[in-house]
């Protein structure tokens, strides 16, 4: 299973290297969202600074929807879904592979976004340990849920509208937990944030588990 | 508005909704069962 996961993840990342869709479209979009928030909340008031953690994670959720759609539009091409089944790949491995590639791309975007909010919204970096742990756990949860819901919507004519509707309510706990954890980290009270990290870890584990278990029947269908 | 009028609203909306929903189920069931042969709609309970 891990061998198949590595193969799929390497393939997805290679496609990204060759097509650079994340780098040239999704990443600039994320930065654009940061600008839009500044327009909406007057930058001279303190609103922007206070809302930084929440705005960061809302931006990440927007990016997630795009990244998930991209990830599964790859598999929508020219009978690829059939080919994956014909290759006899382990479904759990396919899930983990797609998951890993998505997480790597999201993490890259998040690091750039974090630098963006620190610079643009004039926050100081604090609580780096909690920030990094939150980012990893939250991204694992987002990636697992995104992969699972991505394949649920994949190949349907209504996928562009269905995916955000299905995915975003489910990611609400991640948004809440990651935002609170970031708040505590940036405010310099990391001890308040660790329970939120635990919640994020539970979320990620639940979704990875269910993903591995159910991906088989989702690939199986005609 | 008095507290009692909120109570009538709070009870009325659910009761009416459930009644309408029930009626719609019965009507849909009647309409559909005309299209389905009797063999396939013998309810065991």
């Amino acid at each position, binding site marked *: 299973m891990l061998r*198949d996961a590595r*193969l799929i993840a390497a*393939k997805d990342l*290679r*496609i990204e290297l*060759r*097509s650079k869709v994340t780098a040239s479209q999704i990443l600039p979009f994320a930065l654009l969202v940061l600008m839009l928030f500044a327009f909406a909340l007057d930058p001279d008031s303190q609103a922007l600074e206070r809302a930084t953690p929440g705005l960061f994670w809302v931006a990440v959720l927007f990016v997630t929807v795009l990244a998930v759609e991209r990830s599964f539009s*790859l598999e929508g*091409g*020219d*009978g*690829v879904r*059939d*080919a*994956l*089944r*014909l*290759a*006899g*790949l382990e479904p759990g491995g396919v899930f983990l592979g797609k998951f890993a590639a998505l997480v790597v791309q999201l993490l890259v975007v998040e690091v750039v976004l974090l630098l963006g909010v620190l610079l643009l919204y004039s926050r100081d970096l604090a609580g780096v340990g909690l920030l990094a742990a939150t980012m990893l756990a939250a991204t694992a949860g987002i990636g697992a849920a995104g992969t699972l819901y991505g394949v649920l919507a994949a190949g349907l004519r209504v996928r562009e509208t269905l995916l955000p509707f299905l995915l975003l309510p489910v990611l609400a706990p991640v948004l809440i937990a990651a935002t609170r954890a970031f708040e505590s980290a940036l405010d310099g009270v990391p001890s308040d944030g660790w329970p939120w990290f635990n919640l994020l870890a539970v979320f990620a584990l639940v979704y990875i588990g269910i993903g591995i278990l159910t991906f088989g029947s989702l690939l199986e269908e*005609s | 508005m008095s507290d009692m009028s909120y109570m009538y609203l709070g009870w009325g909306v659910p009761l009416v909704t459930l009644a309408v929903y029930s009626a719609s189920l019965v009507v849909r069931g009647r309409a559909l069962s005309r299209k389905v042969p009797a063999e396939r709609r013998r309810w065991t309970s």
Partner: protein
Amino acid sequence: MEPVIHLRGVVCLLGRFPALAGVDLSVEQGEIVLLQGPNGAGKSTLLRLCAGLQPVATGTARVLGHDLATESHQVRVRVGLLAHATFLYDDLTVADNVRFWTLAAKADLDDAQRAMQRLGLADRLAEVKVSRLSTGQRRRVAIAILMARRPELWLLDEPHAGLDQDGRDLVDALVREAAEVGATVVIASHELDRAAQLAPRHVTIVGGAITAITADTAAGPAGVPEHQQPEAVRSAP
């Protein structure tokens, strides 16, 4: 010995459409069979079914000794399906695609390299993105991946379509070589003159059911009764 393909009363649905409406067919090991019939007759669906990609609605279907209803995943890894879709990632190069699909199927990379050489993909084209290729070139990549898998059952859907003269000859040679080493081949084709030279047995499918099975030793379209020839062939030059 059990036939490689053994279908009894197979019904197969595409959404709500019964693409196969009760098919009976047996194909023995090492046979080369030509599947013919008009457009929409169910040829492609039959091949996809045999590859384990299409659920069996009713009837029994056994391929390579496995029941498709329960063990289709054991069948899939042993067949090679050349379909209308080429199963390629547009954003990857030819070499990337061949490498990925070969590893995915746990096949041998050296075999894949030899297949690419034989199909003229090893040199200039290897580093070209698949999205830049012509239809015929894409078909060649798909065939190279198929060869590397060394399937026991080849299911070829219009294998000559889109290929140049050289490519068509190559396909014929590959089919003969596969049969020589004991593989079974089913070809769905409208190019009856070419396919008939390969396949001694012709199966006609119309309206999702098999209407005729003719075993010709005198190969060629003349061996098939006129009324069974599909429209496309009769009007062909």
